[in-house]
């Protein structure tokens, strides 16, 4: 009994000594999850990014009302950018079965009756429903873009460094649901997680400009986003010129509307360097220089 108690005390002593040595090391270890106050990060570690990707894809699937390619399907013909609002309008009949292709066999053909197999977008009425159901409630579809928001929120929770989550969510909140305040708040949240990110700054600037009509604030933020773009993207071998084009276009439009033509021409001149439609930009520059309207309606969201 005595030997038993002695060994127990000895073991307790060893455990305590080890814990006093190991605990400080663990706290200072770079990989320690305890260094964050984020519960999700503590629980999931870096695997949360995988979930974030999944939830972002889920939002895209919701945008297509469940019609979405799996990892086994060919993604060609399925525009993954659709959720960002940049997808071109498509013809329903033409798009039917785009990534699904023609049924391979009877099982494939039969099973297509049991899952969404037509390319439609949330908020739009399905052409098939339209044809088959004369009582189809079109009003019910309006504002259904809201359904993609929980997944974007979750994606941002899982991976706060995923920039497009903020920009996409704010786009839908602002353009389709008229929630400018919520859109701004979400972008600010993104900015806190990713200080100085040029894409988020561009989104914020656009909201100030087109949403709140706060021109001076919009100008400041958009100009800051351009500065940040130069810092973040300028040194890259393949910089995101599309974003730069969007920032410059927005700035040029803002200055043009404020009759600040020299600044507008300055932005258009820079935009011409990165834009594929140089002709139409030149027409805008000429218009601003001569006050003559351009032949084509160019750019601008």
């Amino acid at each position: 009994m005595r030997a038993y108690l002695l060994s127990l005390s000895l073991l307790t002593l060893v455990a305590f000594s080890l814990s006093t040595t190991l605990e400080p090391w663990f706290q200072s270890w770079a990989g320690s999850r305890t260094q964050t106050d984020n519960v999700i990060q503590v629980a999931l570690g870096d695997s949360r990014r995988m979930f974030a990707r999944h939830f972002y894809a889920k939002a895209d699937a919701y945008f297509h009302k469940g019609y979405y390619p799996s990892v086994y399907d060919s993604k060609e013909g399925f525009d993954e950018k659709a959720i960002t609002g940049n997808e071109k309008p498509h013809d329903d009949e033409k798009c039917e079965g785009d990534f699904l292709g023609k049924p391979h066999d009877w099982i494939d053909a039969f099973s297509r009756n049991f899952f969404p197999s037509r390319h439609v977008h949330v908020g739009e009425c399905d052409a098939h429903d339209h044809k088959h159901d004369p009582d189809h409630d079109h009003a019910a579809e309006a504002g259904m873009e809201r359904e993609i928001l929980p997944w974007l929120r979750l994606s941002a929770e899982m991976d706060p460094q995923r920039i497009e989550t903020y920009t996409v969510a704010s786009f839908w909140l602002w353009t389709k649901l008229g929630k400018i305040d919520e859109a701004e708040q979400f972008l600010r949240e993104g900015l806190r997680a990713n200080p100085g990110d040029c894409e988020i700054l561009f989104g914020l600037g656009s909201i100030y400009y087109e949403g709140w009509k706060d021109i001076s604030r919009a100008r400041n933020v958009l100009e800051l986003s351009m500065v940040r773009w130069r810092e973040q993207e300028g040194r890259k071998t393949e910089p995101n010129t599309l974003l730069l084009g969007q920032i410059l276009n927005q700035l040029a439009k803002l200055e043009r509307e404020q009759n600040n033509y020299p600044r507008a021409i300055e932005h258009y001149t820079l935009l011409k360097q990165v834009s594929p439609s140089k002709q139409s930009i030149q027409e805008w520059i000429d218009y601003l220089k001569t006050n003559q309207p351009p032949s084509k309606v160019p750019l601008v969201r």
Partner: protein
Amino acid sequence: MNPTTHTIETARLPELPAREERAGTLNNVLAIAGVVIKEMYRRKDFYVLFVLTALVTLLMGSVTFFNQDNIVRYLKELCLFLIWAASLVITITTAARQIPAEREQRTLFPLLAKPVTRNQLVLGKFLGCWLASGISLLLFYVFFGAVAGAKEHQWPIVNYFQAAVLHWFMLGIVCAMTLLGSVVLAAPSSTNTIVLVVTVGILLIGRHLNKVALKLEEPVQSIVYGLYFVLPHLEIFDVRDLIVHNWSAIRWDIWAAGLAYAVTYSAIFLSLACLAFRRKAIN
């Protein structure tokens, strides 16, 4: 002192007409099924899973995203996912333990010592498990309908009915498959694991096996392609996306064909289970 029994005649029972025998089969199958149902509602598994589903759904339902309180599809998806998971767990664990528990607790002996055939026992167990899963499914779907309806202010009863019945018939296939597993495999735990893995596997990649096969080398390609045609396509019965995204109801003839598909596969697995159980020594 050896006995001589050859001089002793045997007393004969009167022979039963065929109709009586059929009625006897139905009677026995129903009696055995009744015991399985009683077992389900007296165990805690179902209640635990139901409460868990309800709690998680209600908790998630109380979350508001971007001050938009009429977002509902994520909640429908979550609730349906929990219902699917719970129903699979209930069905597989209930079916997997039936015959092994009868053997282990030796209740099989007094039961088969009565005028009950082994086929009737398997059929009774199947019917009991299937009905029990149907009862639990009904409760789950009523809860789902209430949650979705309260948030969405619409009750597409036809769509919910189609989805619930397809789900129930799919559980019939799973139940028959589990019974076959429980007759062939030794321990209920291995039956549980194997059937759960196979079922989830089919649900996830069953529809894509043909595409997977094309990327493989022969002879694996032919084997996987063969599996695509042989395995029951359980994913057909998973119409959650149609329900979540408010697609219109499935055509009734297609829906009925889906049910017939489930009945066929359940019958195949049940026949195999009966055959395996008939050959099994139970002493």
